[in-house]
């Protein structure tokens, strides 16, 4: 993702970008209309190019009205995706899952590398209160709202009150999941520095671990409520504990290895990151290690146990400038617009209540932790976004309860779609208002034409 600011772009530049965007859409529109039947790898290549180019250009154009780049990437994906122009079909969106794997690993690695122990110490009190309040208050309140409007939710018709309570608790867990990718995306674009940025990053990365534990707990509690045969088992916690410990252990080892590599070799980091992102993510899944947590720990180790953090972050930023655009544009293409059209009243009610309780919880935790005023005011702003993690949780829940899993997942997709579109805008708005976004002009690379011949 390109940096925020830069030299003021002229109307001519914007016109060129708009014309180029039209060319990009036009080329793929023409091609898909001439050769519409193709569902092979070849379509994927064109789709990646389209999403990258259209996402970049759309983000540049939306920048003029103050929207974050991430919204531009999403919008490019939505317009070009299977539900509007059908330039990128469902098959292609599925084919792009390796890009998501790579992007998530880079996001986690960068997230960990951004977390410095001294910074964490400075926000520890606020972090602890926020984690407690956001995880309990929001969970309970959103579960309550779900219970209250259950009569309008298609898949809960005919359920007993006990079962409804169980489903509501599961929805509550979904409500407290956040989006590390959206947070990192906005921070990477705006290069924001300040209490809101630091708190948001630390909270969201930590909440990833908390949500995993909460999900296991709620699955355990909800099972006997939803199914008559279910019982509470402590076994789930043992497995979870092992997974968390092993993830941290593997992450620390990876981090130490990376730090040594960065120090002793320090070259070709693009290829190293690609190898880590593609190769290790799959290996981690195979050995039941949570890859997000492992990469987070690895980044954390590199930053805090060596002086190689800035180098790692710089490389991730360079690689991410391409990968993140495709990742978010693919997420946009993945949005199920017809489903959203069908479920929007319920989804909007749930999203609005979630946002409201998140703000209230932010105010309460800010007061209890005696946070600075700026944090009390805007600390909640990054917590509205939801993306891949929430969808992942919904898949786990759908698998655990097949009787209503599909409906639950559909509603989750609709709700995540709304939060995914609104959340980043809110976060960027808050960072701008808090005065934390970087407005310095990024360095423009000098032209090589002025340099002497290379030897």
């Amino acid at each position, binding site marked *: 993702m*390109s940096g925020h600011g830069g030299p003021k772009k002229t109307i001519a530049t914007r016109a060129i970008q708009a014309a180029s965007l039209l060319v990009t859409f036009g080329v793929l529109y023409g091609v*898909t209309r001439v050769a519409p039947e193709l569902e092979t790898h*070849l*379509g994927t290549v064109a789709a990646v190019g*389209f999403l990258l180019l259209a996402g970049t250009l759309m983000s540049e154009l939306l920048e003029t009205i103050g929207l974050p780049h991430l919204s531009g990437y999403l919008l490019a994906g939505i317009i070009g995706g299977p539900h509007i122009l059908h330039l990128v079909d469902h098959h292609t969106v599925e084919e792009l899952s390796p890009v998501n794997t790579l992007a998530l690993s880079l996001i986690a690695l960068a997230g960990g590398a951004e977390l410095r122990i001294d910074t964490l110490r400075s926000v520890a009190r606020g972090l602890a209160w926020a984690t407690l309040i956001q995880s309990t208050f929001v969970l309970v309140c959103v579960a309550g709202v779900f219970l209250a409007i259950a009569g309008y939710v298609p898949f809960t018709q005919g359920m007993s009150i006990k079962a409804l309570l169980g489903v509501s608790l599961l929805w509550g867990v979904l409500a407290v999941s956040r989006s590390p990718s959206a947070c990192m995306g906005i921070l990477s674009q705006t290069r924001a520095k300040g209490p809101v940025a630091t708190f948001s990053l630390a909270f969201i990365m930590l909440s990833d671990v908390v949500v995993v534990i909460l999900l296991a707990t709620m699955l355990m509690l909800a099972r006997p409520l939803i199914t008559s045969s279910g019982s509470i088992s402590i076994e789930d916690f043992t497995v979870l504990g092992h997974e968390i410990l092993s993830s941290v252990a593997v992450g620390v080892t990876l981090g130490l290895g990376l730090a040594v590599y960065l120090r002793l070799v320090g*070259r070709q980091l693009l290829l190293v990151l690609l190898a880590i992102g593609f*190769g290790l993510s799959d290996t981690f899944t195979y050995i039941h290690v949570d890859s997000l947590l492992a990469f987070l720990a690895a980044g954390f180790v590199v930053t805090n146990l060596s002086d190689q953090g800035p180098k790692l972050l710089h490389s991730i930023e360079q690689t991410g400038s391409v990968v993140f655009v495709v990742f978010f544009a693919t997420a946009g293409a993945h949005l199920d617009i017809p489903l959203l059209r069908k479920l929007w009243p319920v989804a909007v009610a749930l999203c609005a209540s979630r946002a409201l309780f998140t703000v209230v919880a932010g105010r309460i935790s800010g007061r209890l932790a005696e946070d600075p005023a700026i944090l009390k005011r805007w600390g909640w702003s990054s917590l509205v976004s939801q993306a891949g993690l929430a969808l992942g949780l919904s898949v786990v829940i759908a698998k655990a309860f097949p009787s209503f899993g599909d409906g639950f997942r559909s509603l989750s997709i609709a709700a995540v779609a709304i939060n995914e579109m609104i959340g980043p805008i809110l976060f960027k708005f808050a960072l701008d208002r808090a005065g934390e976004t970087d407005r310095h002009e990024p360095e423009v*690379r000098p032209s*090589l034409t002025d340099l002497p011949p*290379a030897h």
Partner: protein
Amino acid sequence: MNAIAFLLGLLVLAYLGSILVGGRAIRGFGLASGAEYLVLGFVLGPQVLSVVGRSLVETFQPVVLVGVSWLGLVLGVSYLRVGQRRVPVPHILLGIAMSVSVCACVSATVFFGASYFSPLPRIEVIAFAATAGSVCSETTRHSVRWVVERYGAKGPLADLAADTARASALFAALSLAVVNAWLPGAALPAFSVLGRVLVSLGLGVVLGFTAALLLGREFRRDESWGILLGTSLLGTGAAARLNLSPLSATFAMGLTLAIVSRHRVDIKAMVTPTEKPVLLPVVLLAGAYVNVKLPMPLLVLVATALIAKILARISCGSLLSLTSKPVSGVGLEFGGSMLSSGALGLAVALAFAVRHPGVVADTVLLLAAVSVLLGEWLGPAALRRALIRAGEIKPEGPPGEAQPTLPSQA
């Protein structure tokens, strides 16, 4: 071997390639054309050890397609310059003329040979002849660079060799566009072959202009990567989807950038170092694709095509020695030096194999692979001899005592 392990293997190879590009100390290490990776791919592939099975090789078809197209872009971007020097137009024309001559000789030989001695249908014979000619028409500029840098050569003959090798890429890229447009199965049935060729190249030109405009004002590397990758992937995918030639489209895009972009030197400096990291995995995959279990008439035709190529190159060199001052007296050696074949020949064969899989594609790929090996054996030695005779390198200088390297020929 599973796909992830193979992908990691390719990344390791790309890593090795990037070290070969970046490390001054080991520049000139390995063979000029990268033929060792071709052999490695063949040995690991389905024909010998089967470490990389056929289905896995086919899974990586998009990687091949993207790699081949990226090489097309790099060749296009760097077409008009050798280092900081512009390639003179007469040298470009000479390189193209030599490519056309060699292509004509090889195509004619293959056409008549295949018509009389193989059971192939007419359409396959024409496709075979055209693509064989296209594959043989290229001279790898890496071979020239390798000799020039290794022996510290400097002079008009070294420049001419570098320029004509570079210029040969245009004809190969264009002829592939014609073959792909002519083959059955291309989209746009209402268009003539010429129309489809123009669509392939036009796609590249339009995307090249778009990229040039977007990179027009300030040049920021991070944003530039997104634009270059986006436009090239869009061009590759769009051309492939229309069953046209992605390599030709990206070559046209690169050439357009080289002509119209004010940041052409920056763009060249950006993309050139990526060539080797992309090239080695592509060459390895090409090796894995090679199939030697072909009917005897086709194997004989491969040998015949190679003989035709050698004769055509030597004839071109001899004719050139009569008209060109730098080549005077070293025509035979100069012609031999132009036998070096490499990435582009393999890329053309691979692109053809993706577009039109079958026995003809296998034969063309085998021809490209053997051509690389033969060129590796004959080309650099012939060029060295020509340069020694022309007085552009010292005859007694062993490789270890090479002169300081010249400005990069990349």
